[in-house]
């Protein structure tokens, strides 16, 4: 027996109202119901961070959250970062510094690191590495990601 609920969620500023199965994850809701496929699934058990989105500003793993838990809340995904085709400073730094290869981990990392820099605008390298340690990247060895995040922070502080 399907257990259905109707939820209202604002995603990247756009309000949506949808009927969903209560067991539907937030990740599947975004990917399948809203066709926002930028949020990726790398493990579905909360370990890789690829599925990270922000709910009410807080970075969460959308594979571990149910869609119904976001009822009445706002969700931000990677699709909402660039505005009018203009990349955010962090996206630009990832491009400059070669902070991505296959790009599969990238959306989750961008969402995690965007929140991190809001909370810690002047981090050390080791703080960045610690904050990044919930996101797995198999391609880059992290170095270029760390450099991109540090450069974004420096830029925001007007040092670059």
């Amino acid at each position, binding site marked *: 027996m399907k257990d259905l609920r109707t939820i209202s969620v604002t995603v990247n500023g756009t309000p949506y109202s949808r009927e969903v199965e209560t067991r539907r994850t937030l990740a599947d809701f975004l990917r399948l119901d809203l066709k926002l496929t930028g*949020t990726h699934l790398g493990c579905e058990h909360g370990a890789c961070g690829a599925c990270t989105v922000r709910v009410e500003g807080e970075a969460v793993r959308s594979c571990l959250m149910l869609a119904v838990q976001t009822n009445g809340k706002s969700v931000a995904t990677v699709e909402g970062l660039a505005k009018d085709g203009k990349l955010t400073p962090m996206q630009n730094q990832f491009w400059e510094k070669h902070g991505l290869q*296959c790009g599969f981990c990238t959306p989750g990392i961008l969402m995690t690191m965007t929140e991190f820099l809001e909370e810690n605008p002047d981090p050390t390298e080791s703080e960045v590495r610690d904050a990044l340690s919930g996101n*797995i990247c198999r391609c880059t060895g992290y170095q270029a990601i760390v450099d991109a995040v540090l450069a974004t922070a420096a830029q925001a502080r007007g040092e670059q």
Partner: protein
Amino acid sequence: MQMRSFGQSIKRKEDPAFLTGKGRYVDDIELPNMAHAAFVRSPLAHAKIKSIDASAARAMDGVIAVITYHELPETLRQRRLPLVVPVESLTNPRLPYTLARDEVCYVGEAIAIVVAENRYIAEDAVAQVMVDLEPLGVVADCRAGLLEGAPRSHLGADSNIAATMPSVTGDIDAAFSNARHVFKESIFQHRGGAFFMECRGAIAHYDQFSENLLVYVSSQGVHRIKRSFHELFDIQDSKLRIVTPDVGGGFGPKGSYYVEYGAVAAASMATGRPVKWIEDRRENFVATHQERDQYWDVEIAVDENAKILGVRGTLTHDNGAYTPWGIVLPWISVATVPGPYVIPAYDMTLISVITNKVPTTPVRGAGRPQAVFVMERLLERVAKELGLDPAEVRRRNFIKPEQMPYDVGVIFRDGRPVVYDSGDYPKCQEVALEAINYEAFAERQKAALSEGRYIGIGIGNAVEATGLGPYEGVTVRIGTNGNITAYTGATPQGQAHKTTLAQIVADHFGVSIDAVTVETGDTSNISFGIGTFASRTAVNAGSSAHLAGQAVATKVREIAAQLLEVEPDDIELTDGVARVKGPSNRFKTLRELAVYSLGKPGFSLAPGMTPGLENTAYFTPTQSSYANGTSVAEVEVDVETGRVHINRLVMSHDCGRVINPMVVDGQVVGGVAHGVGNALFERMVHDDQAQPLSTNFGEYMLPLAADVPRVEIHHQETASPNNPLGVKGAGEGGTIPTIVAIVNAVANALAPLGVHIAEAPLSPQRIIQLIDEAKARSVA
């Protein structure tokens, strides 16, 4: 030809889409009326299938079909998966059916495919398929599989040995009987799996009206997958198309054809609907190929000056349950042991053992890290026994640049003798040692030790066969809108082919890379292809891009010269036009030339002219191009907790001429991180019934940002003479020497405690155990 892009760190064409969530991976593709699949897999490592009852699953709401071996199309019931690389010494090849027929040979082997309206229902239904299994004896370890009376990993097999193959050069008996010193080591090495972030996945769309089969698959090369489909299904060439969209990492295992792909196609044929299967992470741990175990029993003979006289021994290799790639993996291992050293006599026998575990095929490095580990541990042993500096022992044995090309004397897995084409191995090591201030390390170590801190330094040197043949093709075509497009069978998984190949082509036309589009991963774009693995794309596809680009540019010049009534040499190509050199400002646009080159309907082409601005090149290297590298690690080991901290890691690397330094650095750093994982973290754990115990990222540890060091890279650029660009491969060079560099550093740090290390990976628990064992030895 002006050089504008080649050699420059140009930002990648791929990135804007990836950064904004517009990447298109296989799971992002949705076809109308698509159904979703999940697999019933074996819970046992070896068992007979007595019966399968799918009636309850079939009766569930939303379930469309449950397909077992018996419901497969006839050709799939007759044919097992094709053997990709048959060789004579593979006397006991083993290949699976698409779905297990009467026997399962590893945990995770596919037994049935369930097709449902969505993935949630498909997974619910999997749990309702009742499979009655009768357990059989299990070969859980490759050495145990060789013991007398060991169970057989396959029913009815005479032996568990897939292949035995010697690699021999020189007079090994003389080398050992004349040697001043002989040292023996027994070395265990384990590498886990690839663990790309995007799991495997495929969508099959069989159109019953046209009888066309279209398969989207997350792969490292569409043409070999197409070939397997061809061999398994009776489908006409024109009706089969394989497409690989963006791929979230490959590292080797996505280069294989897997049973799931055929099963998904069969499901689409049976249901008349497109069927999608996306591997979940647990399946990825049990059903995607890995590398796992190698046991090496080796000895080295040296003279009184630590000069190597010979190396001999055996490699016992865990092949897993099937042999899709034959013995490619252990063969690469035995051919890589000699590395950058002069080894007058060599005799290594590989024994590949069929076990009841998921098959092993190449993962980034492809058996080479293990080979390098063996050689470098032996040299450490020589240094220790003879009281010499490890770097000096290596210096005394290096092949010198003036000895190039250097014939190692063994045969590589491409059937060609291992002949190093170029490289300066002594210099490569010196650069790394200097960068890390090796000379002063002994002092640093002494000072640290006096404070009770255990620091150590370790070296790894490697030579790597890259750019393996047979070929990779590139078609360059200029459309009548003036656009330049390059089509290739080389399929990227993050390596930036769309940028680097564009750099090569752009230079022939004097345009920026934005003017060149690179299309990959579609069998309808180019007739043949091999795919991306073995660090082969820069050499093979790169050279083809160069040759095809050059040919089209030549034709552009010829046609423009004809129309502008000058000689072809008077034409230069810049910014999308072919212009007459000098001040005249007479030119033709690429667009005009492309239109002209097609001819006018009803008119004859100009004499001698072939239609279109198009050329296809299939560059075929005569042999591998040999890249080389030195990794030097400095670590600190916490002897209370066993934790290893990598203080510094220097990588000196020669991959020939570099197309895009930023991209190469990215490959090297990523490769080093993989090496860190293999040295310290990654381990597939199985129990004695070959039941995998590490099937998620909590139990299997990948290196995280806080675990990997900043990599300090130093490039040499020794152009390879084997291809027109002088390039060599770069995708695996970071991984190969790094594992042993870290382990050597740990061994060096713990040397004062009498610890001997002959294995990887080294977990903290294992390090504590090794320290305790050393203590016990010293007390005894």
